């Protein structure tokens, strides 16, 4: 599986940091080109590489860590998204775009990426907490995962676990996923999971 992070802001870099700590190869790209982040990326070690946006979008799993309003532009960079897993790590705020008309923001994103298997995760913690060590007090920090493709959910949950978190899969977007919406009950929760 190849991974790419789109966006090199606080969240994108925090995600890259967790990949680096776990020794999992990942590329990272932003709209300003790889030179703009080469120093930051170098500091993360050999498993993280800065790449062009187009290069990053050829990964099997693409992680969107950009402002919500920027995702339609990213989506248009490819003709189709068949076979790609797209991780929605974005937060929707009312001011971001046109109103969602009661739809979940991830459903909105899914429509922008036709053919992609969309999974919502990595969106729910402040960047600083995301980047910090998920193993704590003998347990692991919880990362919720939701999406309409069971297989993609399981794949992304395995990635989340590899990054050191405890993945809790909430099912489809209309069920568990709505709890991960902006200001939803499972957002901004610093939870450490221990054995029951």
């Amino acid at each position: 599986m190849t991974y790419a992070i789109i966006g090199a802001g606080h969240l994108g870099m925090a995600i890259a940091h967790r990949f680096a700590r776990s020794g999992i190869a990942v590329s990272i790209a932003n709209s300003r080109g790889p030179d703009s982040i080469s120093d930051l990326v170098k500091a993360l070690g050999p498993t993280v590489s800065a790449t062009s946006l187009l290069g990053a979008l050829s990964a099997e799993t693409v992680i969107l860590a950009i402002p919500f309003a920027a995702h339609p532009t990213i989506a248009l960079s490819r003709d189709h998204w068949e076979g790609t897993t797209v991780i929605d790590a974005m937060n929707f705020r009312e001011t971001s775009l046109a109103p969602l008309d009661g739809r979940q923001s991830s459903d909105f994103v899914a429509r922008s990426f036709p053919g992609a298997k969309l999974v919502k995760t990595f969106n729910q913690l402040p960047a600083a907490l995301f980047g910090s060590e998920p193993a704590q007090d003998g347990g692991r920090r919880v990362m919720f995962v939701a999406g309409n493709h069971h297989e993609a959910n399981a794949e992304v949950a395995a990635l989340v676990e590899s990054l050191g978190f405890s993945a809790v899969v909430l099912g489809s977007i209309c069920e568990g996923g709505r709890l991960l919406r902006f200001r939803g009950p499972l957002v901004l929760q610093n939870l450490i999971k221990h054995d029951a």
Partner: protein
Amino acid sequence: MTYAIIGSGNVGAALAGHFARCGIPVAVANSRGPDAIAEVAKALGPSVTPLTLEDALLADVVILAVPFRAHTTVARALSNWSGKIVVDAMNTYGVSQEELKGQASTDVVASAFPGAKVVKTLNQLPAKLLAQDPAVNGGRRVMFVSSNDEAAETSVGKLVADLGFAPILLGKVSEGGRLIGMGGALILQNLIKHG
């Protein structure tokens, strides 16, 4: 607000222990009568009072910690449940989907208690873990709460916090509530909330 726990098995006793620890008065009743609970209640201290089922049901908030099928017996003990909050702390081990007619178990409970505001919580941890001090490593053990009645959900969320847990309100039964139903993603999760 007055509270009663119906059932004095593992879950009922664990809950009574939390009320006692936090000094919140609570009545406890079971089907065998108050004498059967007297010793346990005495050991827990003055905030726990054994009562008959009939007297316990005078409480504003009635917590069901009985085997799932026994809830109908409790429901029949009162002709009018209007104005009461019923906390569904039951799980449905061994109850088939056919018996629930495909409904969420809390919806089945709600139809047995006409007029009551039903809140699902305190159901999601094994009794042994439920009984433990919820303050752990500087954080608090999470207790999810769900109800179709927002005010009742908030009120029970506050009780859960007063008992030392970190409540997370999941909203309606058809939304977050499913996740704390049998086999749900948020069942049997030992989560400690920090910050």
